[in-house]
């Protein structure tokens, strides 16, 4: 009897906790939207300088790692495709396959996952550390809103930089595909290029880029949320950092699923 009570109590508490977290997360999203989309038009300003700093930190500094990884992803896609297509003498279609899958899916997704690991975790760690050292409280007592000060610049920086990084990722990924086509399949640059252009339609690129706005929002809000929910010392910061990466990757996949259903579902 006691065992059952214990288990039920546990489930009850966790469910309650889950909904409390959801409502806090929603409230953070709401406040961020207010400080990003409403407050600047009411003369409350936007912090451009720190937004630009964050764009460099999270965007520009991520270019090398995004480029290297996406080059290899393009290469891998091409290898997998070539293995199948060569048997039918249709090796040129490697260009179509790499082009479409990079722009529609792999470019946005891989970039978002890299940035979730690199910048989402940094957001959680920075805000979490500030929380531990009473810096967030200090901001508030000085009359500064922590969301305007900390969350909005990061959110905006990601919103601008993630699409740019994704464009780089798409290009480099297609480059990776071409690298294989040139050396293994002996396809010339002009032929590969023309085939890619032929295969891609604007919709591929645009649907890929629209997704990145959702991904950027997820990374920024999840990271900030985890940072603000840090309790206790350095250990709490470590936990929040890990949680932010796991949670944002999970939500990114869900958002990707929903977007794909919306754009391409034939049902």
């Amino acid at each position, binding site marked *: 009897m006691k065992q059952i009570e214990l288990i039920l109590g546990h489930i009850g508490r966790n469910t309650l906790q889950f909904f409390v977290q959801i409502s806090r997360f929603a409230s953070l999203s709401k406040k961020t939207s207010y400080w990003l989309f409403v407050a600047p038009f009411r003369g409350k300003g936007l912090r451009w300088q720190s937004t630009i700093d964050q764009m460099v930190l999270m965007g520009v500094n991520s270019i090398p790692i995004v480029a290297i990884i996406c080059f290899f992803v393009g290469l891998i896609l091409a290898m997998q495709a070539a293995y199948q297509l060569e048997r039918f003498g249709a090796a040129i279609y490697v260009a179509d396959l790499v082009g479409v899958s990079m722009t529609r899916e792999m470019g946005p997704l891989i970039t978002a996952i890299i940035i979730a690991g690199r910048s989402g975790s940094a957001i959680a760690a920075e805000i979490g550390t500030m929380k531990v050292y*009473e810096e967030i*409280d200090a901001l508030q007592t000085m009359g500064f809103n922590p969301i305007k000060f900390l969350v909005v610049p990061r959110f905006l920086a990601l919103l601008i930089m993630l699409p740019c990084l994704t464009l780089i990722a798409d290009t480099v990924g297609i480059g990776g595909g071409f690298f294989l086509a040139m050396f293994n399949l002996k396809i010339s640059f002009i032929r590969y290029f023309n085939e890619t252009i032929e295969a891609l339609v604007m919709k591929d690129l645009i649907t890929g880029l629209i997704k990145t706005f959702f991904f950027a929002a997820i990374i920024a809000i999840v990271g900030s949320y985890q940072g603000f929910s840090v309790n206790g010392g350095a250990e709490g910061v470590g936990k929040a950092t890990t949680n932010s990466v796991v949670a944002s990757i999970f939500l990114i996949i869900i958002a990707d699923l929903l977007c794909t259903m919306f754009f391409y579902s034939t049902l």
Partner: protein
Amino acid sequence: MNSIMIEIKDLVTYYGTRKILDGINLTVNRGETLIILGRSGCGKSTLLRHIIGLSKPSEGHILIKGHDITRMDEDERLPIVKKIGMLFQSGALFNSMTVGENVALPLREHTQLEQSTIGIMTRMKLDQVGLAGFENFMPAQLSGGMKKRAALARAIAMDPDILFCDEPSAGLDPIVAVGIDHLILKLKKAFKMTIVIVTHEMASVFMIADRVALLDKGRILALGTVQELQAMDNPKIQQFFNREPDPEEVDRNEYLSSLVGG
């Protein structure tokens, strides 16, 4: 002019289901230095957090210069908050900024002053706390006492009329600690600020307090000048003044049964 700066009425607050503050009533007059004395964990920091509006009370009201801050939203509170300085227990300097930027931040954000004027004011404030020439240091490069001083410079950057200090001498050696006390005294004389200090240091009490409030288990146990409190024969008050440990009354049987988990 109204001489009451802060008025706390029937303040009750909980962490979860635990009652932390249990009906606090307290007024602080203009220009006085009130020390809130109490043992670790008795709710001193919690009380301060409520007065400066960082936490909302479960019950009760807090009036600052006649305005009930528990009933205000962020925008309404801003003019009051700008005139309040707070020295946090850990200093709470922004670790990503230099000492100078820390002090300049409120001036940059809340005033229309020229960059050069802000620079001069920043150096003046740092000079007042004895940190002239340290504006380009990062907080991590400062010692504990210097961090407290820098944090104090930031707290007084906007020339507040109320200054709150949470355990200003905690974690400092006695000599540095007395230096901070002297600094607070100096600021008090120079700026005629109303000062509320939370501490468990008796040395600070004797040196800077106009009045003392003794906080115990979330209630105000005694309130008055140092002499008045010293004259009271409540054992809990005397324990503080005479630095006596808790009486050791362990029930042997109860202790044994608690060990075997009965």
